[in-house]
């Protein structure tokens, strides 16, 4: 007897959103970068919008599917690049989960995006320090990376607001 998995409405919606995030992820990886390791993280805009509209569980699905599918398509699956990407995604999802627990009005898209960007780069930095380059000199780079993450996080948050305003 064949076992049939019937995807529900929510599964299909998640798949669409993950596909959208993956497309942005891949388009973004072909952009030239100013500094190696710095990406604008436009794919995270989708994560934030999903978080605001459909909740944290959906955001986790979309983000992790995006990292996995993106790495399979780019050919970096299980490579150090993938590990960095995955660590960043997990860290920012954990922080986003905590940020959503805040009572009152809480964070807007700008705050969420900034918090996600900062935790993303911090997680990646710690993994890089512990695993790849355990040299004290690396710490000097952290303020620069955090500064860029802050700027890009705010920028992505503003884009999120613009996108949300146009959504039905």
């Amino acid at each position, binding site marked *: 007897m064949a076992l049939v998995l019937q995807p529900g409405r929510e599964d299909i919606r998640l798949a669409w959103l993950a596909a959208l995030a993956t497309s942005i992820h891949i388009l973004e990886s072909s952009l030239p970068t100013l500094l190696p390791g710095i990406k604008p993280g436009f794919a995270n805009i989708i994560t934030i919008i999903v978080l605001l509209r459909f909740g944290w569980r959906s955001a986790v699905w979309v983000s992790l599917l995006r990292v996995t599918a993106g790495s399979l398509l780019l050919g970096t699956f299980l490579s150090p690049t993938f590990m960095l990407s995955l660590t960043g995604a997990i860290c920012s999802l954990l922080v986003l989960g905590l940020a959503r627990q805040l009572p009152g009005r*809480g*964070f807007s898209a700008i705050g969420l995006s900034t918090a996600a960007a900062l935790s993303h780069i911090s997680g990646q930095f710690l993994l890089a320090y512990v695993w790849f380059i355990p*040299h004290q000199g690396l*710490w*000097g780079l*952290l303020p620069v990376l*955090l500064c860029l993450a*802050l700027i890009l996080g705010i920028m992505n948050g503003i884009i999120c607001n613009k996108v949300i305003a146009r959504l039905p």
Partner: protein
Amino acid sequence: MTLADRLLLFVSITGIVLLAYVTWQPSAYADRVEIISPSGRKIVSLRHDKTFFVTGALGKSELRIKGERIRFVTSPCQTKFCIHQGWASHSGDLRVCLPNKVSLRLLGSSSQFDSLTF
């Protein structure tokens, strides 16, 4: 922007500035140097000024220690990057001549370093 957003921005900007202040302090001065060449590694004190040669893969690299600093003076390599790197004085500093396979790593009393290459 909500109150939480503003707070987050304030805290993160303050944090980044503090972190930059802490991490961009110059490191301690070194008191000895580890010299790695094809013939092995040795530790030389920076306390005594001297000029000496280390035999590398291409020939002899001339090193000079003066005032607790060290630098490449002459080198048989083509690019002379090692010479242009200049004086090294802080613990953790590296001076490397890849063609001649001679590298210097400055060691201080209170430093710990390690590096993984792959």
